[in-house]
């Protein structure tokens, strides 16, 4: 084939049934194609650099995600690859990625057909949560009064201690709220993936695996929960996204 020998950036795996086309431009603006082997295919685009070197900046990250998001709408199922997979040639994609793992890939494509991921982040409102923690903690209240009554440079230890109490108060509340939110929503989802918080005021950082049918009820429940939690906790829902958090490949040599 013409493109054999050209390094290929691989975005993900899709069914090779001939339905669906890759529409979004790939990394570096390159066209994305489906490289097929049997019943599975890989979304890939050529890497212009002959050594297969690739910059890993924001444009490349965006392009990777964009190709997969577009594919989610086009193909029956998409198995997203992690960012940064470059293979030496079309042949390598067929012979090393698709061929040897075809059974597992097909099984996952079947399993994830029609399903997608919704990302949910819950964040404490700063004023509301600080007020709650300080109001409920006698030591924090006393520290606050002491700090307010003295010049700033005289209260360094007190300020550190107050900050520690706040951080500990946030951790306690996060333990409770993360579980409560996840338990309330998981019965409407096929699966849940809980990740560590990525912000100091984040109560929950999760991905839910859903299908069209479940999304409506999940959404209703989330709206109820968000209304109840307002203004203490705010929610941000992202998706539908390709099921990044729910693909896996057990590797056996």
């Amino acid at each position, binding site marked *: 084939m013409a493109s054999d020998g050209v390094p290929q950036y691989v975005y993900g795996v899709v069914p090779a049934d001939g339905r669906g086309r890759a529409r979004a431009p790939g990394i570096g603006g390159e066209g994305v194609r489906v490289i097929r082997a049997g019943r599975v295919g890989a979304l890939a685009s050529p890497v212009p650099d002959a050594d297969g070197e690739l910059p890993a900046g924001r444009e490349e990250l965006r392009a990777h995600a964009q190709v997969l998001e577009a594919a989610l709408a086009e193909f029956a199922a998409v198995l*997203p*690859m992690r960012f940064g997979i470059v*293979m030496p040639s079309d042949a390598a994609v067929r012979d090393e990625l698709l061929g040897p793992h075809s059974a597992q890939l097909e099984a996952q494509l079947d399993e994830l057909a029609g399903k997608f991921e919704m990302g949910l982040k819950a964040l404490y409102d*700063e004023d509301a949560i600080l007020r709650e923690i300080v109001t409920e903690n006698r030591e924090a209240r006393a520290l606050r009064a002491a700090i307010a009554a003295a010049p700033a440079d005289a209260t360094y230890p007190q300020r550190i201690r107050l*900050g520690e109490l706040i951080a500990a108060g946030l951790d306690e509340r996060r333990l409770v709220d993360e579980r409560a939110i996840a338990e309330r929503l998981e019965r409407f989802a096929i699966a849940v993936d809980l990740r560590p918080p990525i912000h100091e005021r984040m109560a929950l950082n999760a991905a839910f695996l859903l299908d069209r049918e479940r999304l409506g009820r999940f*959404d209703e429940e989330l709206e109820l929960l968000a209304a109840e939690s307002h*203004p203490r906790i705010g929610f941000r829902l992202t998706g539908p996204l390709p099921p990044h958090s729910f*693909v896996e490949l057990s590797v056996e040599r």
Partner: protein
Amino acid sequence: MATAMQYGSGTRPYRGGSGYVARSSSSGLYDVLELILDKGLVIDVFVRVSLIGIEILTVDARIVIASVDTYLRFAEAVNRLDLMATETQGLPEMMDGLTESGASSKTKGAITGAREALFGDDEEVEGDKEAQGSRKRSSSTRRSRSSS
């Protein structure tokens, strides 16, 4: 580039419902980083990919939760709080005051803040500017050739 523009326009306000959930149809840059660096299929050593540079990006993505800076910032925020407000202002009034700005915009602000810390300041910026310095990273991925 067209890709980037389509990408940024994914955010849309929620239509209908109580509107307490901020929504976006596609992932923001921060979500992208979190998802595609940490999650997704990884094939075994046959694929011969090395992720030079990616670890650095991943480490950058971890926001340090507890540090002296954080403590001092919390203390400062607590001192700015008007605790009297809680005692005199009833919950219904607080709700009135907060409905307009809403939980959704707060959430968005903070997440944008985190994103800003990761990617510098050319992303949309609003809300929490929590002394997170802007850092930019660019590094490269290399494919190590399979020896054959």
